């Protein structure tokens, strides 16, 4: 379970504070693969980042015993001038991976970069970089993966592989996912949280949540 305690989050603007959440308390249940649904600007990515610890609420906190991934987006933490392997080691060190060598191997196998794994990322094609980013995250055994549209990139073959990996993971771990593509969410998620006016509602059934979302 991920518990949000009295989260207040606002941004400063020329028209004063723009509140995203005001005293929001919510328990995100474990054992579900959850889609985050909400209109543009409802605060999906803000909530996502707060759960990940990439952003901080102005008040309140997030409590959990689970190990949570970083928000896996297209190229988080990947440096252009370092090779795929060096990037992998960097991410591994930051996350405190005990066995870097087998982590490297696992990322290499998953990302299917071949020889390019030892070449700078700047030489990669546009589909290869997200593949590396995704592989770096999926190769670590987290309890919860935060996925931000990343599975929608790459070719059909990689998408299939990513899907299989996530489905496999979902036996032992969970996914929280942001995407604008409903078919993608339907593939990975079984339930949903709908964001509306700074409030969260949990739906056990994804289809029901999507219906609700379409009316927003």
């Amino acid at each position, binding site marked *: 379970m991920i518990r949000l305690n009295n989260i207040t989050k606002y941004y400063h603007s020329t028209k004063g504070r723009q509140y995203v959440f005001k005293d929001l308390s919510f328990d995100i249940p474990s054992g579900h693969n959850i889609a985050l649904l909400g209109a543009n600007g409802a605060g999906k990515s803000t909530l996502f980042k707060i759960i990940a610890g990439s952003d901080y609420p102005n008040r309140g906190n997030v409590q959990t015993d689970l190990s949570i991934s970083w928000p896996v987006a297209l190229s*988080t933490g990947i440096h252009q001038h370092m090779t795929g392997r060096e990037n992998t080691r960097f991410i591994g060190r930051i996350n405190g991976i005990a066995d870097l060598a087998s982590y490297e191997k696992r990322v290499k196998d998953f990302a299917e970069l071949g020889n390019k794994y030892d070449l700078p990322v700047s030489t990669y094609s546009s589909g290869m970089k997200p593949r590396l980013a995704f592989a770096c995250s999926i190769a670590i055994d987290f309890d919860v993966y935060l996925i931000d549209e990343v599975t929608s990139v790459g070719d059909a073959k990689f998408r299939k592989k990513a899907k299989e990996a996530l489905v496999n993971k979902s036996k032992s771990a969970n996914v929280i996912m942001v995407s604008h593509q409903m078919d993608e969410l339907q593939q990975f998620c079984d339930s949903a949280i709908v964001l509306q006016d700074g409030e969260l509602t949990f739906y056990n059934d994804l289809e029901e949540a999507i219906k609700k979302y379409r009316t927003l």
Partner: protein
Amino acid sequence: MISLKRRSAWQTWRDVIFALFAREIRIGFNDKFGLSWAVVQPILFILLLSFLRGRLNGGDTHSLPTFVFMAYGLLTIQMFIQTFTACFNAVKKNMALFAFRQVQPLSAVIAAALFELLVKIFVIVGIVIAMSFFGIELRVNNPLAVLYYFLSVWVLAVAMGLFFAIAAIYIPELKKIQSLITRPLFFLSAVFFSLQDVPKDYWWLLNWNPILHAIELSRYSAYPTYGSNGVSSVFLGVSVLFIAFMSLFFYHAMWKKAISR
């Protein structure tokens, strides 16, 4: 199974700073020309300055060989300016990495500062080699004191860099006036002159500057005959501690809001 180590907060900090430091080295050494220039440039500059001053005094400046006199000045001021600039830029440059909850702006600043320290070690080795080449005697009466003053300036630069890096997120214009802040320091820190060259009545214009104290004191620690009139180790120590404390205080209050902007 790729599992994560259970880490204490200290271990996490250490791992993150090490990872960022390794990354700095990796990217820094991509630019081999830039790095060799970082070592060669100060030596050329010291040579130029000692040539100009040596014309006037024939080789010795306040009992120090002029080359050594200039070396202490230039090395220390470059230590300050370059570390300050690197720390200033580290936060903005590594913004994307703060998506990892383990990485805080402070860790990026410390990693950048360590990299600058590493470069300076190369520069010192280069200067020592140049000195033996020119047949200048290497004499350091109190090496520990010299090291202490040098590192004081490093800490000062890190503290100021951290402060300005966070402040610049709120006031982007600070970035533009960065060289405006650092350039005068070259002339205010007794790099190519001594406080003793300045009439006593005008010392108050200069002696607020802790870097000047560090430079003069390190020359004094190497050659006690140089004297330490008008400079104070206590002033240096207290200024560095005070500025470091204020900077960390400001950082602690602001960093979470700063990275979510």
